[in-house]
């Protein structure tokens, strides 16, 4: 390709130092691991700021980083809804209202809370689906990482020096990342994963802040960016009256209810991957502060991860006159930067034939996922390039590690100890947790190759994840705030809600899509203006069905006596008074402050 694909010794050195460093952290933390709780829950000893940054980072896998910049280039500033609407309110809610039950009940995991609050079948359903999904997600992100590294061609000369063909870049990426992630989790458990997530947070800032700065200087500052982009790309809310008026193709109601309520609360409030970080905090006050501390950088992250997408769009097509279609239609012109004429948003190529993929109109389909890597290669000279690539690799590994630590906990406590072997001593479960870590990583590698062999399987898997996740928040909301909700109600609500999601998706389709994995695999009853609108409505239907079914079944079944629900339900739990002190250390004022700042950001970018 072009000259910038060459790495220098300094770049390799930076990457190697980072790899050595994460393993060293594992080795140092190893001597603090004595019990299964040390390994799986950090012995509940993590300070609030560390737990908070890990809470944020566990979600900042490379798919998130790469995907948000890609969406920034596709949809513009409206992508920030995934942060300001689709994360912050839910993070404030989980910190203020839900942490008292997760942390105060001494539950060891989210499924464990379900077993305390409801019954074994509800826990079993949640634990098994969650365990399967974490391994699958970890494998998918491993595959995505290896594919991206292979596409970048940055390690070709290194692999060539070893006498191996280029295709081995894929295998080596998977093997090396698996060994490192396995190494530091096996040695230091959840603490090691959390520490590395915090380091990853700082590395992402260190790698992306100069990138955004250079991009902004190049484009002529904020004003220059505004001149080069279509107005629709510069507003978060302005076009949301009608799906035709905004690049997302959704209207405000489905955005707020689907993304802002169902999907966002379902993820941030119930997904053990993130909640685990808060449950490892050293006190109730720290646990409640964890998501709130995470919310502060979260609301500013669009400037680091979405802005590169907008910059790439502005720099790729000097006069970007059309919408997403026009952007596709005009093959990106040679850009202003003469030293590197390669486009920041290249067309997609078929990995086997090397030919450019075209849509039905015969126009090239753009590979938005290359935005971040191409920006790094374009703006960073050797040296800084090593830092940028390290940030990217760190986010890949943290995303994987988050899944593996969530998996080994749920497997050990909620599946193995609950259904396979009860009553062993703690050493036995510690060994099982270590074994589960090895198994989790090995299974992720298997999934990565499975996905590589059957490319369409990825869409199917992600679809199934969406079905399972959509109704979850209804169950937790009723469980925590309505003491009458019963185990039968929760279980049937979840199962039927999941089926409702599948049914809705099977009966609808977005305009222009072909029936199949994108929907309408049963029949076509309704068309949505975009795939995003279809996804939001699938979530909304699933949530409502779960909510209604849980209430109806609960009313016909025997409730649990009040004394069994103390500490598990809002009306039967004493208010947490542990958080005294200055206002910014107390959850409620901190949460209100976060919401006000988010509102201001929304007004600025309205």
């Amino acid at each position: 390709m072009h000259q910038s694909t060459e790495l220098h010794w300094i770049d390799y050195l930076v990457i190697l130092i980072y790899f050595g460093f994460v393993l060293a952290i594992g080795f140092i933390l190893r001597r603090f691991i004595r019990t299964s709780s040390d390994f799986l829950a950090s012995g509940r000893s993590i300070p609030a700021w560390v737990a908070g940054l890990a809470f944020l980072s566990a979600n900042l896998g490379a798919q998130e980083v790469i995907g948000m910049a890609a969406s920034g280039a596709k949809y513009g500033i409206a992508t920030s809804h995934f942060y300001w609407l689709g994360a912050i309110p839910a993070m404030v809610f989980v910190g203020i209202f839900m942490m008292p039950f997760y942390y105060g009940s001494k539950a060891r995991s989210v499924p464990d809370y379900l077993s305390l609050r409801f019954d074994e079948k509800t826990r079993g359903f949640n634990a098994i689906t969650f365990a399967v999904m974490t391994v699958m997600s970890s494998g998918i992100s491993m595959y995505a990482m290896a594919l991206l590294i292979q596409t970048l061609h940055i390690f070709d000369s290194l692999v060539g020096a070893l006498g191996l063909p280029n295709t081995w870049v894929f295998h080596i990426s998977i093997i090396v990342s698996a060994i490192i992630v396995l190494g530091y989790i096996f040695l230091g458990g959840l603490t090691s994963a959390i520490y590395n997530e915090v380091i990853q947070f700082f590395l992402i800032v260190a790698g992306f802040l100069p990138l955004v700065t250079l991009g902004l200087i190049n484009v002529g500052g904020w004003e220059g960016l505004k001149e080069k982009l279509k107005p629709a790309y510069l507003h978060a809310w302005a076009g949301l009256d009608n799906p035709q008026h905004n690049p997302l193709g959704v209207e405000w109601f489905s955005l707020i209810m689907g993304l802002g309520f169902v999907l966002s609360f379902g993820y941030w409030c119930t997904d053990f991957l993130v909640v685990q970080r808060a449950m490892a905090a050293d006190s109730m006050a720290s646990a409640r502060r964890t998501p709130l501390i995470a919310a502060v950088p979260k609301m500013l992250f669009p400037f680091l991860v979405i802005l590169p997408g907008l910059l790439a769009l502005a720099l790729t097509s000097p006069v970007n006159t059309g919408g997403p279609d026009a952007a596709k239609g005009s093959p990106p012109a040679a850009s202003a930067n003469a030293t590197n004429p390669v486009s920041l948003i290249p067309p997609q190529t078929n990995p086997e034939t090397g030919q450019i993929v075209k849509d039905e109109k015969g126009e090239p389909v753009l590979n938005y996922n290359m935005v971040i890597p191409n920006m790094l290669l374009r703006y960073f000279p050797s040296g800084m390039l090593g830092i940028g690539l390290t940030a990217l690799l760190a986010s890949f590994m943290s995303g994987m590690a988050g899944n593996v630590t969530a998996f080994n906990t749920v497997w050990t406590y909620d599946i193995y100890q609950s259904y396979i072997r009860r009553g062993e001593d703690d050493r036995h479960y510690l060994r099982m947790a270590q074994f589960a870590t090895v198994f989790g990583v090995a299974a992720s590698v298997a999934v990565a190759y499975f996905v590589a062999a059957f490319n369409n399987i990825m869409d199917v898997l992600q679809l199934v994840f969406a079905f399972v996740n959509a109704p979850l928040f209804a169950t937790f909301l009723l469980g925590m705030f309505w003491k009458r909700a019963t185990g039968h109600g929760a279980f049937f609500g979840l199962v039927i809600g999941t089926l409702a999601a599948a049914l809705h998706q099977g009966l609808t389709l977005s305009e222009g899509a072909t029936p199949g994995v994108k929907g309408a695999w049963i029949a076509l009853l309704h068309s949505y203006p975009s795939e995003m609108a279809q996804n939001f409505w699938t979530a909304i239907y699933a949530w409502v069905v779960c909510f209604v079914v849980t209430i109806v079944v609960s009313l016909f079944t025997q409730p649990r006596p009040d004394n069994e629900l103390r500490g598990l339900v809002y009306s039967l739990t004493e208010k947490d008074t542990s958080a005294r002190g200055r206002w910014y250390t107390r959850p409620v004022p901190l949460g209100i402050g976060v919401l006000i700042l988010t509102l201001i950001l929304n007004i600025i970018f309205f």
Partner: protein
Amino acid sequence: MGIDLRYPIGLLFAVFGVLLVLYGLLGGTADYSRSLGINVNLWWGLIMLIFGGLMFFAAYRKSGKRGSS
């Protein structure tokens, strides 16, 4: 638990900062036309070094306090 995380963060950023500064000063091979003529290695390396130093200093101060009390 275990170690104060600010030590390893401080160490990593200080090491990266020193590497970038030295490379920015001595590494003749870097192509700064990419970074719009700015010696981004030198400047960002300095910032990373300062950040690493601050992290180290904060952790050191805290451990000093704990030791004396």
